[in-house]
């Protein structure tokens, strides 16, 4: 029999509902897995075994009484340590926040996952204050890539990628400002969903760049992304950027197949600079989806530049007091980018914000003719741990800010993206592809992702 920790969230929930397995058995199996793998891989920063066991016992008791349980009953999950978890200090990857009091209540999305009977196992490692694409953290150590611990997990939701790929949780909640769900999904070979900007409530999560911050799930199956996404939808009034929309469930849409979907490959900016593996992965996905058309996202390079500037400036403002009082307690690589961000001329930032709106109008026109756009998620496989530079477009570039070249122009205007994992022929590490949809069409991106999963083109096995 499959060890319970290997089950996906939907498989676990189905097994628990059928009474083939107890939630407690799944939790115990996963805790053993964490004990075995976490010392090497360094995903968890707070393990909440007692909370997980208590929740599992509650689910098992309700099932024994014949009570109805939620759609994620028996599914384990963890959260990037910028989510508030009652009784735990919200670190956001920092040393500085360790002095803060513990959170008095769970973040909004954690409460929604709880209501669906998902079982929280703990909080996981991340790049400091989410200003990171590597998964490395000077305070907690790097979260490592379970497919090869000598390589980066990707960041900033690095521990999320590590935990899910290693079978130390079925789902992890991450955040994505410029690519921080999609990059670890790519490097760790997972499915990730960055929903539309303003879709899921950010209440009770530590911010980075209010203009660009999104939250979403990472998982080993598209079904699990959809289950988690459906559980987390809903307006709560506590996130000033959250749109007031009705819940639009996607689980029922997954089996819709490819019929009627107009899909194009992103050319231009998205077809240069990357390593061959990035394009081989896009080729594989496009072949499976029958894509023959190419479109060009206009001004993508400028969009990335504008996202870069807004990130620097808003991040700097958020942390200015800490930069004044505790500069030596930051990760130097984060601190010095924030210091520079505090000094940017205001006119640059206002212009970048104005450009954002114009770019949105330009890109949305493309969606009159296509439903989905396919682009690489990262320009390369996971670099080696500690690697400082790589070659992009023939030029040696610093790794840390440049891993997000393909993700930044998309999140800049809040488009929903499903990241899907591809193992190209002979590759020892996976690499991701973005399936990009028009705002609020998560259903279409997940439908295509599901078709790729069904055909075996995109798979996310537990790394052993």
């Amino acid at each position, binding site marked *: 029999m499959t060890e319970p920790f290997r089950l996906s969230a939907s498989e676990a929930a189905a097994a628990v509902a059928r009474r083939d397995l107890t939630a407690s058995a799944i939790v115990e199996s996963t805790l053993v897995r964490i004990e075995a793998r976490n010392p090497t891989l360094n995903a968890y920063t707070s393990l909440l075994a007692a909370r997980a066991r208590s929740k599992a016992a509650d689910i098992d008791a309700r099932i024994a009484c014949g009570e109805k349980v939620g759609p994620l009953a028996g599914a384990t999950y963890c959260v990037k340590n910028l989510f508030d978890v009652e009784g735990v200090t919200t670190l956001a990857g920092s040393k500085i926040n360790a002095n803060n009091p513990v959170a008095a209540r769970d973040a909004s999305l954690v409460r929604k996952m709880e209501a669906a009977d998902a079982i929280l196992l703990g909080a996981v490692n991340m790049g400091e204050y989410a200003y990171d694409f590597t998964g490395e953290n000077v305070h907690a150590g790097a979260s490592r890539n379970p497919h090869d611990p000598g390589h980066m997990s990707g960041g900033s939701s690095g521990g999320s990628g590590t935990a899910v790929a290693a079978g130390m949780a079925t789902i992890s909640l991450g955040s994505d400002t410029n690519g921080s769900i999609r990059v670890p999904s790519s490097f760790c070979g997972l499915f990730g969903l960055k929903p539309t900007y303003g879709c899921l409530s950010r209440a009770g999560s530590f911010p980075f760049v209010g203009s660009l911050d999104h939250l979403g799930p990472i998982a080993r199956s598209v079904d699990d992304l959809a289950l988690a996404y459906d559980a987390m939808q809903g307006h709560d009034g506590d996130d000033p950027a959250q749109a007031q929309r009705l819940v639009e469930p996607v689980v029922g849409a997954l089996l819709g197949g490819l019929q009627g979907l107009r899909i194009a490959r992103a050319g231009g900016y998205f077809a240069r600079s990357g390593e061959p593996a990035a394009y081989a992965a896009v080729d594989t996905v496009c072949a499976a989806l029958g894509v023959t058309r190419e479109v060009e996202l206009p*001004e993508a390079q400028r969009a990335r530049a504008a996202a870069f*500037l807004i990130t620097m400036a808003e991040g700097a403002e958020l942390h200015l007091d800490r930069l*004044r009082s505790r500069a030596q307690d930051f990760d130097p690589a984060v601190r010095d980018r924030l*210091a*520079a961000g*505090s*000094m940017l001329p205001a006119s*640059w930032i206002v212009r970048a914000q104005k*450009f954002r709106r114009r770019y949105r109008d330009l890109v949305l026109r493309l969606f009159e003719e296509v439903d989905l756009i396919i682009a690489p998620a990262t320009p390369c496989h996971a670099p080696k741990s500690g690697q400082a530079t790589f070659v992009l477009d023939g030029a040696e570039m610093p790794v840390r*800010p440049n891993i997000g070249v393909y993700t930044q122009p998309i999140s800049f205007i809040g488009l929903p993206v499903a990241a899907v994992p591809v193992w190209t022929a002979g590759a020892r590490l996976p690499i991701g592809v973005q399936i990009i949809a028009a705002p609020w069409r998560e259903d279409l991106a997940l439908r295509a992702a599901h078709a790729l999963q069904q055909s075996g083109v995109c798979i996310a096995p537990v790394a052993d």
Partner: protein
Amino acid sequence: MTQDEWDAYIAEAAKLLGLALTDEMRAATRANLETAERMAKLVLDYPLDDHAEIAPVFLA
């Protein structure tokens, strides 16, 4: 801007912002500002008319 011009800018801006920068921080801050300058050139080169507005979250 030249390296010296950036160093002068950083010194004055740090004073204004109340940031105490070490020499190491100054050099890294300059490198980041040089990158930002390249990014800003791309953004500022894009023509926008006087009626272009940002997309604010603020709701009155």
